[in-house]
């Protein structure tokens, strides 16, 4: 009997506001413990939260980008639980009537595009950080009150791959909107997964487990794969799934039941009396809609229509806004998107990956990239030369025409200069020459290679090939020894 998994995801995205959601403390990451706290986020008696306007704006931006309904009226609620990372004893969140609901995004799957529903997006405050140390836990409340958007999907995903694809698309939308830095390691983009399995064809959901805080795409894939298999094994051996929260142990690649002293998940939500309802008017929404940047899916479509480059290239080029902007600047200076895209795919992305850095952190400019192509077009360098100077441009920012002089890469297109090298190569490789002349055509590449070696790759390949063909056609096998 075959099974299928049912996966729903909850994502917490930290918003890139300067100050916290309900007070003016800074949201800066990595400051000294508890240095960014005040009576409001410390949960002192008698204080009142005041909502940060930007948080509402960012929530609406994401709602619009994910095809949600923006609710004119929405409310904050108290989610009650005792845990030292939240000194008030409750988290201010939204429960009934969140700010955005009923949206969707399209994701790529092996079977083509698939629509994944978004149940809701709501605003809430983040909790603090705990460090466990022996018999104690240490509490840092700097993160308490950092604004979060929680994005809850419908249980529409069926495989770990689909879950990862959804997360990548959602993260990219957040990055394009510029409202979250998407850093999974630092926890500004966190994911909890609800997963259950059922026999194929069943319409009822099985009992689900919740996998908490998994901090990389690879781990999400692995955690889901493990958990799905674990659940299938239990059902096949006649057991029952227990509804529980599980943690992914990345060193062992397994999920384990999480035991915590907060045993009762009974949050007793009720409307937050300290905050009035939030009202968003039509004009405000319209204004935000008009100011939205081009979104990843819109950009991909435009690249397809405008540049006619392969789907895979589009995928890579639009993955980061910096790269796609850079690419488009290059195209505006040198109207050959296909050639440029190829060079990005094979050379530039490789250099960036090796350096583990973004394109704007290098000294590469669209002007420099385009100059490489002009040198190629003018036969001043060959492709090998282009490859050789690229890392130097990245490191020094020097112009390609200066570099090819400095590095002695100016292509040899002078026929007479090449001619003597060709003859030299033929004289020094008489055995191969004889073989070639008696029909071993493949050796042509060997001679090309030898000349390239002698010229440190600087020979103009086209001229060299013509020249070599011409020379070889004129030599008869008897002449070889007397060359």
């Amino acid at each position, binding site marked *: 009997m075959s099974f299928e998994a049912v996966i729903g995801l909850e994502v917490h995205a930290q918003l890139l506001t300067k100050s916290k959601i309900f007070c003016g403390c800074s949201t800066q990451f990595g400051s000294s413990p508890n240095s960014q706290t005040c009576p409001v986020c410390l949960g002192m008696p008698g204080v009142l939260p005041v909502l940060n306007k930007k948080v509402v704006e960012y929530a609406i931006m994401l709602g619009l980008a994910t095809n949600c309904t923006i609710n004119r009226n929405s409310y904050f609620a108290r989610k*009650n639980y005792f845990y030292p990372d939240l000194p008030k004893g409750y988290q201010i969140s939204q429960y009934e009537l969140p700010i955005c609901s009923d949206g969707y995004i399209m994701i790529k799957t092996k079977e083509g595009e698939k629509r994944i529903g978004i149940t809701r997006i709501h605003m809430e405050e983040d909790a603090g950080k705990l460090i466990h140390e022996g018999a104690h836990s240490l509490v840092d409340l700097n993160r308490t009150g950092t604004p979060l958007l929680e994005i809850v999907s419908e249980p529409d995903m069926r495989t770990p791959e689909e879950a990862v694809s959804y997360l990548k698309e959602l993260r990219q939308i957040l990055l394009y909107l510029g409202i979250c830095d998407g850093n999974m390691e630092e926890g500004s983009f966190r994911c909890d997964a609800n997963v259950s399995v059922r026999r194929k064809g069943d319409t009822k959901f099985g009992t689900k487990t919740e996998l908490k805080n998994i901090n990389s795409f690879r781990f999400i894939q692995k955690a889901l794969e493990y958990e799905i298999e674990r659940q299938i094994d239990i059902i096949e051996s006649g057991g029952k799934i227990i509804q529980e929260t599980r943690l992914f142990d990345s060193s062992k690649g397994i999920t384990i039941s999480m035991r915590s002293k907060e045993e009762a998940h009974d949050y007793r939500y009720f409307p937050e009396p300290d905050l009035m309802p939030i009202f968003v008017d039509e004009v405000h929404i319209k204004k935000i809609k008009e100011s939205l940047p081009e979104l990843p899916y819109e950009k991909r479509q435009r690249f397809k229509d405008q540049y006619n480059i392969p789907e895979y290239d589009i995928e890579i080029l639009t993955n980061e806004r910096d790269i796609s902007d850079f690419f488009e600047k290059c195209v505006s200076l040198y109207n050959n998107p296909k050639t440029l895209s190829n060079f990005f795919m094979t050379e530039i992305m490789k250099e960036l990956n090796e350096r583990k850095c973004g394109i704007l952190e290098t000294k590469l400019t669209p002007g420099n990239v385009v100059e490489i192509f002009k040198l190629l077009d003018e036969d001043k360098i060959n492709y090998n030369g282009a490859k050789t100077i690229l890392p130097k441009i990245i490191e020094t920012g020097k112009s390609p025409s200066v570099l090819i002089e400095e590095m002695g890469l100016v292509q040899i297109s002078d026929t007479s200069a090449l001619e003597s090298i060709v003859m030299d190569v033929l004289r020094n490789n008489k055995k191969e020459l004889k073989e070639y002349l008696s029909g071993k055509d493949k050796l042509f590449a060997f001679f090309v290679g030898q000349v390239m070696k002698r010229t440190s790759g600087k020979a103009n390949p086209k001229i060299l090939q013509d020249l070599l063909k011409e020379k070889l056609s004129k030599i008869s096998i008897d002449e070889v020894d007397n060359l």
Partner: protein
Amino acid sequence: MAEINKELVKYIATLARLEFDEDELDDFTEKFRRILEYVEQLKELKVDEIEPTYHINVNYTSMREDEINQSLEISEVLKNAPDKKDNFFRVPRVVE
């Protein structure tokens, strides 16, 4: 209405991190029941066509600009802490 019994009162006390002896539990059970019975009268009202009231105040929330204000001095932050280490609050270990 959910049946108000001693078990439920105990559960609510646990959520609120409160401890009561048997006599107190009996007392609360009786009081809870009476309060809820009283509130139960609301169910007699016809409210099908009335929007739920999330808030008794009819105003909308006012908002602040996204600007940083001075946080508290660390000495002030930790002033009331029963236990601390470096600049952290220190509490009994919360995970097993």
